[in-house]
């Protein structure tokens, strides 16, 4: 490049321009620095308080502390659901670059985590928001816990801490009533309301899924506390500031009216059988036992059930997941007869008018068989209840028609849902003319034949075990239309008793008459459940009523006997009872699904065993039992004691009573 010529004057001119411009640019730089200084003064002197707050909110964080879930106890304070400490292993995804696979691989050297579980966890962790810990392993041993805690600094995003886990000390005994808790699903989270609480995202948090745990979830939850911690930018805890902690409020304690001993005994006597046992206090309506069998271990659900485990429970033909106390409805069979009898008395039928039973009754073009092929002979109402004579009740029901029966059934508690605090009850069916017109579209007119089977608790009638117990308790109480009560208190606040109710619409004489029949069932040597109803507790006696609910049609069969029939096709076996007869305190209803013919065989012995526990636990009755009995005067009781030994006759596989194998072609069968 050719350089242009330079003259001195120009050199001086260039210097002058440079100096002027330099001052200018230097001044601009100075102004710039001054502006920075002013900005600093603004931030650090004028606005400093605002930024101090922001800095503190960066630095300090409140970590939610889940409250201990409320205890659930029985009427005596025995624990039915509590919490136990649990060493958990948590993994937090701090940002998208966190190597979840590598972390889990490393962790699998400390705790057993197989490939399938690792894959599932990777998915879980990906779906969870950043910085929300996910539980990868529960119930670590102390060794595992300490090994991981020591190495925690090398394992980014891994924490081992101590949480609480729900525990049901009685395993399956209360599974249907109390339900269980389980992990929170995405569907549980709502944008508003109690389920918007961030505590639900806590990895150890469990939500009530069934029974009391679900119905009283909000009471049991309590209020979350918080731990003040200093965190770094990745959300890792650096220090704890215990002075800033907010304590959590534990969930409310819920007291049930159930009794651990009675409930456990009920489940025990059910054995492998499928069915339900409900016991109620006849004086105030408290439910002492609500056992559904077979049951399942609620503790398994807390951790999360594996697929095969769940399928095994769901597919088992005896349906352990179904609550047979409230959800299962059954034809009441002959346990409906006291209600029919009461309806007859109310309808003005003279109980002393006798009906002749010859083992069957030809009416309406066919023979309606009594369960006893030879017949009962001449029967009044008392005898008919005692012997469970079908022919008597066929004719009585036909005379009354369905509506008085339905009215009485409603008064006794059938066909209704009781407010016991937990959901899941099925109403069942109480047939009447109006009901049939509405419900049975294909044949809306009530046929006289419907009344005939109605009289023995078959046909258009279905009840659940709870309703049976309520009916028995109302009958035993003899005055009040008792309501059942399951929740005794919530957080120390007593729930209303079940006896603050109007009286039953029956006279004392009517009720006494029917009760007399039930006493005879269990205490007359000829009663249908005499052998199986002897308590062996001094002078305390039990009254009851047997029942058989037909599952299959007997048409074309050689025998009604259930022996040798597949389990699924055997009759349901029912029994209701109360004791002591002279001062009724406890009422019990037993349903043994497919237990075989005759309520006495499968139902009564179980009712007796459960009743014995309840009676012996009652201090007043106990002292009565322990006072020596006066010497028997009549020879009959002696014989009775010999006949009713306390032999373990409560096992399954009921031997059919000596019913004659006479062919019966009646489509609607009888019930015992």
């Amino acid at each position, binding site marked *: 490049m050719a350089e242009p010529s330079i003259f001195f004057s120009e050199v001086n001119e260039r*210097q002058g321009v*440079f100096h002027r411009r330099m001052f200018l640019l230097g001044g601009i730089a100075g102004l710039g620095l001054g502006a920075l200084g002013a900005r600093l003064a603004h931030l*650090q002197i004028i606005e400093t308080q605002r930024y*101090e707050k922001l800095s503190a909110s960066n630095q300090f964080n409140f970590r939610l502390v889940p409250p201990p879930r409320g205890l659930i106890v029985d009427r005596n304070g025995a624990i039915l659901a509590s919490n136990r400490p649990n060493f958990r292993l948590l993994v937090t995804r701090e940002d998208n670059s966190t190597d979840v696979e590598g972390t889990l691989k490393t962790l699998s050297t400390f705790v057993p985590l197989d490939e399938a579980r690792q894959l599932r966890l990777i998915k879980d962790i990906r779906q969870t928001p950043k910085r929300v810990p996910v539980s990868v392993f529960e119930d670590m041993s102390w060794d595992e816990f300490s090994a991981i805690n020591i190495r925690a600094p090398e394992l980014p995003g891994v924490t081992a801490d101590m949480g609480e886990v729900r525990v049901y000390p009685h395993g399956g005994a209360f599974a249907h009533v109390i339900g269980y808790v389980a992990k929170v699903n995405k569907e549980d989270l709502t944008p508003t309301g109690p389920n918007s609480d961030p505590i639900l995202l806590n990895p150890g948090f469990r939500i009530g899924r069934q029974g009391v745990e679900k119905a009283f979830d909000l009471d049991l939850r309590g209020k979350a506390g918080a731990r003040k911690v200093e965190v770094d930018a990745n959300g890792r805890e650096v220090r704890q500031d215990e002075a800033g902690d907010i304590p959590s409020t534990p969930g409310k304690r819920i007291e049930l009216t159930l009794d651990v001993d009675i409930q456990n005994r009920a489940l025990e006597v059910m054995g492998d059988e499928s069915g339900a046992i409900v016991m109620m206090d006849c004086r105030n309506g408290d439910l002492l036992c609500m056992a559904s069998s077979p049951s399942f271990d609620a503790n398994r659900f807390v951790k999360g059930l594996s697929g095969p485990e769940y399928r095994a429970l769901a597919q088992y033909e005896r349906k352990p997941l179904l609550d047979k106390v409230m959800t299962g409805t059954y034809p009441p069979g002959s346990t409906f007869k006291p209600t029919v009898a009461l309806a007859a008395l109310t309808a003005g039928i003279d109980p002393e008018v006798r009906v002749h039973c010859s083992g069957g009754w030809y009416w309406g073009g066919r023979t309606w068989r009594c369960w006893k092929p030879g017949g009962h002979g001449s029967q009044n109402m008392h005898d008919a209840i005692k012997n469970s004579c079908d022919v008597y009740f066929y004719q009585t029901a036909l005379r009354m028609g369905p509506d008085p029966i339905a009215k009485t059934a409603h008064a006794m508690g059938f066909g209704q849902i009781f407010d016991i605090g937990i959901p899941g009850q099925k109403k069942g069916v109480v047939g009447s003319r109006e009901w049939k017109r509405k419900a049975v579209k294909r044949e809306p007119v009530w046929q006289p034949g419907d009344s005939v089977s109605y009289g023995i608790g078959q046909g258009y009638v279905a009840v659940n075990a709870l309703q049976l117990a309520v009916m028995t308790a109302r009958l035993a109480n003899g005055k009040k239309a008792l309501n059942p009560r399951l929740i005794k208190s919530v957080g120390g606040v007593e729930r209303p008793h079940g006896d603050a109710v109007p009286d039953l619409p029956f006279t004392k004489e009517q009720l006494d008459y029917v009760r007399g029949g039930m006493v005879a069932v269990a205490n007359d040597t000829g009663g249908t459940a005499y052998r199986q109803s002897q308590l062996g507790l001094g002078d305390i006696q039990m009254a009851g009523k047997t029942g058989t609910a037909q599952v299959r049609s007997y048409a074309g069969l050689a025998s009604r006997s259930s022996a040798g029939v597949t389990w699924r096709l055997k009759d349901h076996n029912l029994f209701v009872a109360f004791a002591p007869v002279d001062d009724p305190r406890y009422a019990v209803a037993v349903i043994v699904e497919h237990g075989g013919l005759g309520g006495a065989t499968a139902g009564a012995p179980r009712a007796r065993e459960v009743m014995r526990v309840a009676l012996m636990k009652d201090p007043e009755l106990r002292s009565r039992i322990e006072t020596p009995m006066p010497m028997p005067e009549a020879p009959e009781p002696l014989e009775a004691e010999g006949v009713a030994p306390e032999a373990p006759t409560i096992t399954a596989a009921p031997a059919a009573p000596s019913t004659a194998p006479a062919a019966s072609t009646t489509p609607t069968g009888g019930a015992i």
Partner: protein
Amino acid sequence: MTVSALTRPGERDRLVVKMSEVDWLFALALCLIAGAGALMMFSIAGSSWEPWAAKHLTRFALCFVLMIGLAMIDLRVWFAISYPLYGIGLLLLVAVEVAGDVRMGAQRWLAFGPFSFQPSEIMKLGIVLALARFYHGISADNARLSWWLLVPAAMIAAPTVLVMHQPDLGTAMLIAMTGVAIVVLAGLSWRIILAGVAAFVVAVPPLVMFVLHDYQRKRVLTFLDPESDPSGSGYHILQSKIALGSGGFFGKGYGLGSQSQLNFLPEKQTDFIFATLAEEFGFLGCFSILFLYGAVIFMALRTSALAHSHFGRLSAAGTTATFALYVLINGAMVMGLAPVVGVPMPLLSYGGTVMLTVMIGFGLVQAVRVHRYSEVTSGKGALM
């Protein structure tokens, strides 16, 4: 030594005399700034010399020696190498375009065996020397307004476009603004300056919308409204402001800055070290550091005013302009007054490349001071 002694021929070429001519107060200010940087690095590493503080001090010591060494080099040598250096820088920028390494999403690095460096750093010095040499050769009238000015325009545009394409917006801006500063210092017509400013104001919005890369545009937009996305791109600015503001007047105390110690502050040892310092030492500490920077700029500009040669004046002032731009851009960024661009606080921030560039530049400034009486010509009698 008396002033008269210095007038003896050859006296000023003696090493001892040259050493005494170095601005040692200026050198002290540089040491104080670098020392403050090391102090902060020691603090945020949790009171540890590793990994930053020791390395920072070692590098500074080496660079300091280099600066004194460069100050001894005759201004005529600087003059002679100015065009070649610019040429090499431009070639390397092209080479980076063709065969450079991509690191952190940008193609900036050239690898020579185990070493790798950014040619754009050479260009920061190259543009200053080349423009100074060019203006050394033209008259004031030509520098004010003439067709000759197309040459410096091209000299600035070529490296700017290449660096922008890497993409490295911060360095490109720095090169362009340094170049413009020299053009203005050399005496550009006010009419052109005002027209340029006007054009800039008009051109920036469309430039931001259409020419910049997505991440660059996002930074600019985030700067305009940092709180719109506090966990995303606004995070840097917000956290930096929190660190500054929460420092207050006296600071939280040495080693007690929660923003930096707990990693809320990003790039705490590099681009945002000023915020770290602000948090722990408050307004007093910040003001002291800004004062030191002001002093460094003032002393460097005074040196440029002392030079007898136009080349010396312009090269010293141009280097100072680069340094001042570093300080102002980083300061504005940290305080939330400018978008986040990767410009560190010179000497305070951790990082070898920028320190080397700045200290070589100050070597030039000191060379101008030491050789302020040198005659620099490209004609006969030139050194090369």
